[in-house]
Every structure is written in C-alpha cells, then in structure tokens.
C-alpha cells in the first residue's frame, strides 16, 4: 500500500442511492468493507468487478494487479492478506476451477480473503456470457481434502453490495476464504443499490494476538475455535505452511496432528454455524409447500410464490443467503410440516441433494432444473408447486 498520494482522500464508501449493476455493487461492497488489494484475471461475466477495482483502488491508496492467471490471482490475494491487507479476487467457472488448489491453501493456513464467482453455464467454456448455477458443489468440495466452507449467494445488486461486506466480515472472523456465489444475471442486472453511511456499516477485523511473540502460537485457537492472527512484519516470525501443522504452525506428519488440525478447521465453522447461516423466510408460517432457492433463482421463486398465493396456494420461500453451511436444522423442521419442498436451480440438481438429505424423507423434495443460458421461468416453479400439491399425501 502506498500513501502520501493526493488521491487517497477519495471516498471508500459511496454513501447514496445508485442505479448499479451487481458486479459494480460487489466492488463497492468490497471497498466499503476495507478491501485494498485486488488481484484478478479478466473473465466474462466477472470482468466488471476487476475493471471497477482497477479504477477505484488507486484513489484509495490500494493496489490492483492483473495477474497472469487465476492461480496466481488466488495466491496473490493470500500474500496480501498475510501482509495485513483485506484482499479479494473475482472470477467465473473456468477461473474458479483454477483457483481450487490455492483455496485449499487458504483453508489450511486460515487466510482471510474473498472470492467472488460470477457463475456462467458450464461445463468447460460453456456459455461464457450466459447464466448458470453449476458451481455450487464445486464451491463446497472443489479443493482436495476435507474441510468446511462458507459461501454466500446474492440475488440482486443490493445483495451483491451487502453480501460482499458480510463475506469480508466472515472471512476475517473465521479466518477462511469466503466465496460469493453470484451468477451472470445478478452480476449484470442493474437495479437500485443503497449504500449506507460509512458509520452504519458494521465491519469485522481479524483478531490480533494479545501475547508477545515468545508466547504466541499461531494456531492455538481461542474459545470460538479461531486463532488470533499475527501478520507478516509484525515481529512474530510466523511460519505458515500448507502441510498438516500443529499449534506452532510446524509440520506434523502424523495421525494425531492431522486429526487435530482437520477437526479444528471443520469445527470452527460447524460450531459457529448458527452465527454464519442466514436465510430470508417468506410466508413460511402457514405454508404447505415451500420453495428453497438461492441466487437469481430466488428471484424467480419470489415471483412464483406471489402468483401461487394469489391463486390460493399456501406457498412459502426460504431464500438461502448462505448456501454453505447449509441450513440443516431449519430444513429438517420445515420438512416435517409441509407437503413438499421445491428447489429451482440452474443446473441438473446440486443443492437439491443437500435439501433431500436434510429433509430426510419427511416430505417429497422436487427439483426444478434448468441447464443454463437463461433464468428459470416462475411458471415452471408454480407448475411444480401445483403438481406437488395434486399428489396424495
């Protein structure tokens, strides 16, 4: 970071009301959250985030660098994060695949950072300019080994702004790369975005060690399962490795260290899941059929619920703000008191597997699948609701 620049006085938080697309809103959310480093590689439909970052960061004394690929981008933001600077990258499917190994390094070394994946339809190059939601399981399981993830799914430009701030807060709080699972339509959709005054934005910063260097253990967790994080250049002389490591951060090539480390990486998310998971529940109280949806498909679902209600169907909606961890408890409860759960998604059925698992057979679970290229028509969801209710209980 550099200072003494005449432009440093520029505003990080553009308080006001804007007509803005989702990618731009993501960038503004990041800047409002304190992001001052962005490394990325151009890819449709996420390019606008990088473009805006390249224009905005210099004004704020931050650094934008266009790397040679997405592998390098992911590595660079982690380097910046250990330097004590909030950092992010953005990408889409092919680039997201390239980032996977280093996302694993981020999980293992507990590096706060944010990745925004503006999904397009795949596999492979697929439909570069058109919507898909096919990376949902990749966000959960794409890197090797066993771990827990945090992923959020915005369904509007406003949520691109809000959820990007939340992604930074979660990444700082739990020391983990947080994924924003957007999609092409949300990224390119232009809508009203309200940016609150700076003082009203709640920000979380990584916890710093409270002890001097000779007493500090980089991976000894506090009560919440997260260890305070000393950064580079702070005199703590930390050693950070992607090898299985103990509380000192030193490699431990044995069963005990592996179990201890992986259990803690998993535990710090699972044990805090009630603080991490957020859903928006619409018309749930009297619902006999409930849609569970995320991203742009939650917008189709909102419309379908409204139409269903005016047709006399008691429909409800659970909009997943966090897709990972999945709201298991809520789904288990709802499944016991509704006639059907329906999930629309722009893939051949990914999150629906998790929905089925959590419903545990308590009610039928239906998928409204669309393979990408356009959003799901609300009529398809409405039709699935009617069909589900027609069947005998």
């Amino acid at each position, binding site marked *: *970071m*550099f200072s003494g*620049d*005449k*432009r440093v006085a520029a505003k990080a938080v553009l308080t006001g009301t804007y007509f803005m697309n989702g990618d731009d809103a993501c960038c503004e959310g990041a800047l409002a959250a304190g992001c*001052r*480093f962005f*490394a990325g590689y151009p890819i449709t439909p996420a390019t606008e985030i990088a473009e805006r970052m390249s224009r905005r960061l*210099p004004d704020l004394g931050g*650094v934008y*660098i266009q*790397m*040679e*690929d997405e*592998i*390098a*981008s992911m*590595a*660079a*933001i*982690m*380097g*910046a*994060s*250990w*330097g*004590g*600077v909030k*950092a992010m990258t953005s990408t889409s499917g092919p680039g997201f695949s390239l980032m996977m*190994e*280093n996302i694993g*390094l981020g999980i293992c070394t507990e590096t706060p950072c944010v990745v925004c994946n503006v999904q397009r339809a795949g596999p492979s190059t697929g439909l570069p300019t058109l919507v898909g939601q096919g990376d949902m399981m990749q966000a959960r399981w794409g890197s090797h080994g066993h771990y827990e993830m945090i992923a959020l799914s915005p369904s509007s430009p406003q949520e691109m702004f809000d959820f990007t701030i939340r992604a930074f807060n979660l990444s700082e709080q739990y020391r983990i790369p947080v994924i924003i699972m957007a999609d092409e339509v949300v990224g390119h959709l232009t809508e009203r975005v309200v940016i609150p005054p700076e003082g009203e934005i709640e920000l979380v910063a990584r916890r710093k060690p409270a002890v001097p260097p000779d007493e500090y253990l980089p991976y000894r967790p506090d009560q919440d399962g997260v260890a305070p994080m000393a950064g*580079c*250049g*702070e*005199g*703590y*002389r*930390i*050693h*950070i*490795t*992607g*090898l299985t490591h103990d509380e000192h951060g*030193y*490699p431990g090539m044995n069963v005990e260290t592996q179990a201890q480390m992986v259990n803690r990486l998993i535990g710090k998310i699972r044990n805090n899941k009630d603080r991490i998971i957020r859903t928006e529940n619409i018309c749930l109280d009297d619902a006999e059929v409930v849609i569970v949806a995320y991203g742009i498909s939650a917008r189709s679902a909102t419309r379908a619920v409204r139409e269903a209600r005016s047709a006399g169907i008691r429909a409800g909606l659970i909009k997943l703000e966090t897709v990972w961890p999945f709201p298991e408890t809520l789904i288990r409860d709802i499944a016991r008191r509704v006639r059907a759960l329906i999930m629309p998604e722009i893939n051949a059925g990914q999150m629906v597997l998790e929905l089925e698992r959590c419903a545990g057979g308590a009610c039928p679970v239906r998928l409204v699948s669309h393979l990408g290229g356009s959003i799901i028509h609300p009529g398809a969801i409405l039709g699935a609701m009617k069909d589900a209710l027609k069947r005998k209980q």
Partner: protein
Amino acid sequence: MKVRKTKESPPPHPLEKLLRSERLPHIWCSGCGIGTVFSSVMAAIQKSGYDPDRIAVVSGIGCTARMAGYIRLDSFHTTHGRAIPFATGLKLARPDIKVLVISGDGDLLAIGGNHFIHAARRNIDITVVCVNNLNYGMTGGQLAPSTPLGAKTTTSALGCPEEPFNFCYLASACGAVYVARWTTLHIRRITNSITDAMQKKGFGFVEILAPCPTSFGRRNKIGSALDMLKFYHERSVIRNDIDPKDASVDFENHIVLGKFVDTERPTFMDNYQMACNGRIGNWLDPNRAIAPENEAGR
C-alpha cells in the same frame, strides 16, 4: 554419592538467531547442496543489514522450499509453483517488507514458470533464489526443466529427451535486473550475490547449481556428493557480465558462472504509483515525428 556429570551445552550456531533450531534435524539428504545455500541465504540476510522482522521468505513445494520451515523469519511455505504470485501479493501489500522467494528448479520453472516470467517482466521487487539440482529430488528424482538432454531420471530412464532451460538467460530475457549463477562451491559469491540482489530494487535472480547425489547423481554415475562438487569445480568458469545468452550450462565442457545482469529499471510499484498519480504518460503519440533510423539498426 554419585556425581552426575553435567553436559556442557554446545556453543550456539553462528546463525542461531535466524534458525528455527527446534525444528532440526532437517529433511535434506547427506551431500545435498541445499544446506550450503541455506547457510548462504542466512549469511546474506545478516549481511544485508535489513531488520529481520521486516524480511519474509516465501517458498513453494520441494526440497528447497523446506528452507522456509527452518528459517526464523516470517516464512510462507505455499503451493507448488506459486511462491512468486504469493510473494507478489505480499510485496505489493507491504512494500516495507523485503521478500525472498526460495525455490527449486522444478517448483520455480516448470509448474511455476509462467509466474516467474511475468514477475520478472513486471519487475516485482523480490529476490528469487533458485537451487538447481537438475531434477525433482523430493519425489525421488524425476526429470525437470533443468535436466540435461540424455540424463537419466526415474521418468527418463532411457535418457532425458528434452532440452533444458537456461534459467539465467530466461530471467534476463524476461527483464530481471539482477541475474547471477554459482555452484554450491562458491559460498562467498552466493552470499554476496543474494545480498546484492536483496539490496537492489527489482526482480533479482540467483541460480545455484547444487548436487543431488541421492536422486540425480546416483543415476548418472557422477559418484558421491564430493565427486559432484569436483565435477562442478573442474568445469566451472567465471565470466562476469557475459551476455546471458552465452552463459551456458554445458556439462560436457564449461559451466558458465558469474553475475550476468546488474541493471536498473522501474519496478511494478514505481510504475503503478506513476499511473495512479496520472504521471505515466500516454503509450504513444501518433502525431510525433519518427526518430531518424539508427545506423546500427539497419
């Protein structure tokens, strides 16, 4: 009454303050050249005069990359090939920190080759130390982008069918501002070169040819570690300031060593700050008259 003999504690290692001695013994095989380079790196850090709390070491994966785990500095042992982009992010976020990348030949120039050429092109202000042992030692001796044509490795039992890179020529062509090559016999020169590269602003590259008797020497009938060093000693010639394209590593004849590049060029951060302040200027003024053709350029 029995008198228990008290064991006298050995004198501290001269580089004790930079060693994570609690992590010893290290993983390197006897006869390996990495230890020599490790000592030189620590000596260079001391010599450079920088505050050790403001120096970071970044490495990838491989035998050489394990140095990061033995040095008592902020140290990052990252993913295979990705030390340079990690170091790039760290350096740009924290220009006040001196960043060293320490890497083996396969890590740096096979899987990490793309990052290497781009970091040199951008002139990222980092020092890259490469221990070149002509093969992948950690995984048992497979062919690397440094393996000489015809050399035997576990994945080229019939002889390596690929031509190797000339790392120094590559670094220089990509824009590195400091380029040097030594062997592990040249301890003082390695130390001086790493110190010089650290004190220089921009992308510095120091290659060190190192014996790997366990994986490479054994299959290529070079003999013991000592024999490999003798082999290097007999064939090494020092040609400072020679054109890097002529700085060949020809094991049949001569291994050219020396400092080949020592120049100045704005770093990424210099240019980025110029751009941010609106002072970088335009790429091109199409209306400007073309300069008269240089005689020598005809």
